[in-house]
């Protein structure tokens, strides 16, 4: 393929692109497979999710509202996932006519949530129980949002709180405020740095990607279950990478150094080593080359016609043209 000559997958080398595409394949393939079989697959128990019904039940008994907060992240997979979980919570709450409060920190997330929650009520045939004010936008600003939601928690005396999404520092404000009025909490943040605070202050915590597994767990929809299986395959792939990596690395590091890797000025080369006998360092290994591809001198210098439209400093252009 002559026209591709000198063209490279820039930063990553082939290995990165290959791995990414492999993971994409795992996910899509399993989704397709699950669609055929109906998604009847095993998913391990996730304690935090089993607690959802208890929490709703408690709120119903006490006649107090349920609070849901999808974090303060922009509209992305995390917020959408949080809203998806809240749709499941709302489904149950709607049946018991338990009031809900969904507080958003982003107008975009608010739009999605409003749409989804209204759908839930109308699908359940309970549009009369839906109030447009169940979903509220509080504030775009992190701590104004925290102050506003704390106020709602304390004034409305919520009985159950679902704090699921991208939470940052405000996580503990919500969690401790809920705790101070004895609300039952199910929490989970995709920010691993906030998980310990939820563990310290909340009743049930979803750790890491239990959050992403939640909607598959709750709905058993083939697409989600298939995707979850695909993710598990990808996890096994990553584990295999780590295992093979450390095994090969261990073996390679025992070998004497014969060819050395030299990185200089943005280009690298492999050069025979003829000094005093010593072992390979990490950067001389094959594993290293796989993850940090060699960008050689010739890849880096390709002659092209100068751009006639370029109007930068003339010296630079001349120097480039003359080289």
């Amino acid at each position, binding site marked *: 393929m002559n026209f591709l000559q000198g063209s490279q997958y820039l930063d*990553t080398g082939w290995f990165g692109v290959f791995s990414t595409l492999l993971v994409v394949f795992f996910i899509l393939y399993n989704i397709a497979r699950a669609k055929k079989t109906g998604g009847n697959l095993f998913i391990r128990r996730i304690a935090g999710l089993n607690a959802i019904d208890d929490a709703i039940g408690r709120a119903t008994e006490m006649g107090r509202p349920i609070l849901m907060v999808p974090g303060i992240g922009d509209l992305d997979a995390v917020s959408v996932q949080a809203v998806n979980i809240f749709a499941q919570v709302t489904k149950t709450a709607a049946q018991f006519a338990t009031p809900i409060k969904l507080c958003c920190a982003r107008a975009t997330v608010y739009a999605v949530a409003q749409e989804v929650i209204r759908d839930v009520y109308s699908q359940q045939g309970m549009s009369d129980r839906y109030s447009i004010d169940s979903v509220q936008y509080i504030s775009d600003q992190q701590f104004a949002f925290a102050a506003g939601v704390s106020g709602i928690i304390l004034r409305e005396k919520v009985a159950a709180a679902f704090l699921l999404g991208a939470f940052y520092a405000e996580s503990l404000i919500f969690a401790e405020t809920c705790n101070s009025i004895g609300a039952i909490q199910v929490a989970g943040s995709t920010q691993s740095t906030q998980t310990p605070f939820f563990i310290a202050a909340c009743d049930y915590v979803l750790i890491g990607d239990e959050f992403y597994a939640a909607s598959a767990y709750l709905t058993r929809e083939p697409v989600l279950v298939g995707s979850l299986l695909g993710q598990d395959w990808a996890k096994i792939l990553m584990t295999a990478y780590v295992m093979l990596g450390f095994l090969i690395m261990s073996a390679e590091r025992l070998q004497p150094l014969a060819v050395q890797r030299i990185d200089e000025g943005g280009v690298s080369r492999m050069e025979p080593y003829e000094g005093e006998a010593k072992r390979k360092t990490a950067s001389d290994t094959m594993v290293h080359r796989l993850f940090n591809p060699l960008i050689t001198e010739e890849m880096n210098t390709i002659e092209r016609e100068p751009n006639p439209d370029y109007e930068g400093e003339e010296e630079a252009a001349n120097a480039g043209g003359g080289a």
Partner: protein
Amino acid sequence: MSYLAIKLTLAVFATFGLYSVLYRETRFYRFFEHIYLGLAAGYTLVATWKDTLYTEWWIKMLGKTDVSADGVATVASNGFWIYSILAPIGLMGYMVFSKKHNWMSKIPIGIILGIWSGQQLEVWWNTYGPQIYSSALPVIPTTWSFVPAQPVAGELYASQALTNAIFIFTLISAFSYFLFSFELKGKFLTGLNTMGRWMLMIGFGAIFGSTVMARFALVIDRMSYIWNEWLQGAILGGS
């Protein structure tokens, strides 16, 4: 009283107002909470216009002409007129309140999510590729001694090898906790899973411990603001 003293006094009152919720939710807190939410809403409006819509949209759409001190106008950037189509697309978001056409609000939402999703392919390997590589640590020592004061490049000392092995074990056992669709059977696998949870807890404890500093730093700074800047500087300092 100088302007600075007035400003600092306002700030200190606001701080006490919010702090009062630590005692109980009172009307005093409610008063400051609602001021706070109001200011935040007003500020968000201003900031969204001046930092996003004006600079990223309005100026890009209409171009910019700089006028120098002696009155010579030069074009700093051209107008990118196609951006004006974004206004009607943004407007579609407002259809969320319409009973009939609420589906249209999903178009701008879909575009935002599409842009986010498209970036994930690149982000994934760029983030995790190097982390996988740096987890591929050697575990077979080349010499059976502890790390000396002057380590030799290329040698792997026994203690370092052991540490590496612990690192990999922690990673893999904790990662095994996140396998959802496989039933872990047998002593080894369930044991690995339990260990994984413990390792996670140790990690969480460490995060908690290191975060404590950040939180205390903030309260220390706030107290310094009240006592040093307001009381000592503005009130007693007599400025």
